[in-house]
């Protein structure tokens, strides 16, 4: 996950216009906005509602139903720890507790340095090689607490890309 970018109503409208012809376009639109901005800004709701001929309540209802959509900017990286049974069987609960303690945050929270947002996930489909976590779009298997810390160090020491 890269830095949350600035968004403009024009950018939101462009994402909507590219997809609104599709049947059942709302989820694809929300994905496109979140992929571009990093989250679905509150200000996007009325633009989406207007464009799709829905009420703001309907759009808000969909955003809030799905765990994947977030309404505030995440940290620079998103780390998801699997909470499901196959990972529990190989120490997933210990890893969860370690991740929270080590980062000093609970699920749905972001570290003070804005580097890492911690989320729970229920299954990454890597169930023969748990415990598993997902860092942005990459899944890691057999993650011990030590491996978790090493990974987090690595994420924090990656140089920031300076655009401009």
């Amino acid at each position, binding site marked *: 996950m890269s830095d949350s970018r600035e968004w403009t109503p024009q950018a939101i409208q462009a994402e909507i216009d590219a997809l609104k012809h599709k049947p059942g376009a709302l*989820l694809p639109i929300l994905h496109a906005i979140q992929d571009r901005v990093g989250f679905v800004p509150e200000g996007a709701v009325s633009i989406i509602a207007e464009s799709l001929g829905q009420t703001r309540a309907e759009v808000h209802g969909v955003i809030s139903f799905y765990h994947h959509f977030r309404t505030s900017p995440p940290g620079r990286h998103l780390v998801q720890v699997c909470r499901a049974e196959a990972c529990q*069987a190989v120490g997933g609960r210990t890893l969860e507790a370690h991740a929270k303690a080590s980062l000093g945050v609970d699920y749905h929270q972001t570290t003070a340095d804005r580097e890492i947002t911690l989320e729970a996930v229920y299954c990454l489909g890597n169930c023969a090689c748990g415990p598993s976590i997902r860092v942005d*779009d990459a899944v890691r298997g057999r993650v011990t607490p030590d491996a978790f810390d090493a990974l987090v160090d690595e994420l924090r020491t990656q140089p920031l890309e300076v655009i401009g």
Partner: protein
Amino acid sequence: MSVRVFVPRDTTALSLGADAVADRLRREADSRGLELTLVRNGSRGLAWLEPLVEVETPAGRVAYGPVTPADVPALLDDGLLEGRDAHPLAQGPTEAIPYLERQQRLTFARIGVTDPLSIDDYRAHEGFRGLEAALARAPQDIVEEVKASGLRGRGGAAFPTGIKWQTVLDAPADQKYIVCNADEGDSGTFADRLVMECDPYVLIEGMAIAGLAVNATQGYIYLRSEYPLAKQILDDAIARAEAAGYLGDDLQGSGRAFHLEVRLGAGAYICGEETSLLESLEGKRGLVRFKPPLPAIEGLFGRPTVVNNVLSLAAVPFILAEGAGAYADHGMGRSRGTLALQLAGNVKRGGLIELAFGTTLRTLMEDFGGGTASGRPLRAVQVGGPLCAYLPESQWDLPLDYETFAEVGAGVGHGGVVMFDDSVDMAEQARFSMEFCKEESCGKCTPCRIGSTRGVEVIDRIRAGDNREANLELLGELCETMEDGSLCAMGGMTPFPVQSALKHFPDDFQRAPEGDRS
């Protein structure tokens, strides 16, 4: 001549460092002046050997695993490119590895063998023969073939696929849909992911055949957002299949059309329930619908819709290519064909095992799995996902088929087998089942929405020793209410793991949780 070396690129192999292994191989070969052609294949499904590197030799493919980047120089020193077996990671000829050799791979015949995106590879390995056969037949003939195969829905409900297709074929409509349920949310399951990442064309082919069978021209794959790699591979495969005339307005010059699109879910487990999935595809909250009407009559956008699991659709090309008899020859009783079992959790040798129905859990967990990864005794196994029962040792010798498991209150589900050693606290597992339901309930019906919250609370009281016997009785009643009164399987089946834990592991409910014990 350049030697072909295969390094898998599925999620599991990548999660264990396959990209770094591939990089190291390339660099090491360059610096030694060796010529090799690196192929990024799918996984063979032998998860415990990943990353599993294979080398093509005149005598067939030879395997090495699990390989780390640091192993690469020694592997090359020890004759990896000649397929020699000097190195300790040498596994010999891939197809002779007992874990693989003992399987009956029909649906998964190609995984790990081919480059997942190569249409030439797919065709060279029997690909698109089912579609070609279907294009020469009338819709009713195709439906009859699927009926005769005995194929039942592999998502968990085990409804006969051919009967569902018949209903959609018979429903008059100007537009019909094929929807693939790829919202593989059950913990312990990864077979859908392996199909999509390692052999995407078999799913595309199966969906196109379904379209021909019921006169549907549009298909959607509803894919969970937790599978970003599958999304990327499917999108790429669909574009290539369109370019090659296997999707689009004119399938192989037949004049028949079938279009396909991947739609991403958004992290809601309930969207694996077919009516919730359809709501989500329509752009709404994933609230479960009342049935009837069946989706086969009024499904996506109110039109007749086939909703099938990835594995059901991926079984279809074999059935059309080889005939219903070839498929139905496998299996037992009313469970025909093969089942994709996924060995997971605390297991020494986890992975995908495709076998005819009728094998036992003990064979799977001991002969294939080699027992637990921790080396401690096995204590419980959850088969079929988070909504299915935990089974104690007394049930490990039952033959795996839909009817036998149903008789003991268990389920085969999507074929996930999650093993736990003797350190598991079954009261904690029961609590998690309720907590998961609380987290993932769509909220439409009260027994599921409120029952799961109360379930967590009452299990907490039992574990705290607060009025334990009365609360155990209350938990039993709550489970009955949820089972009888919920609208769908989420609330209706959440009691199964809880009740099985209570029944088979009652001692775990009689003591304080770990950490609270003094």
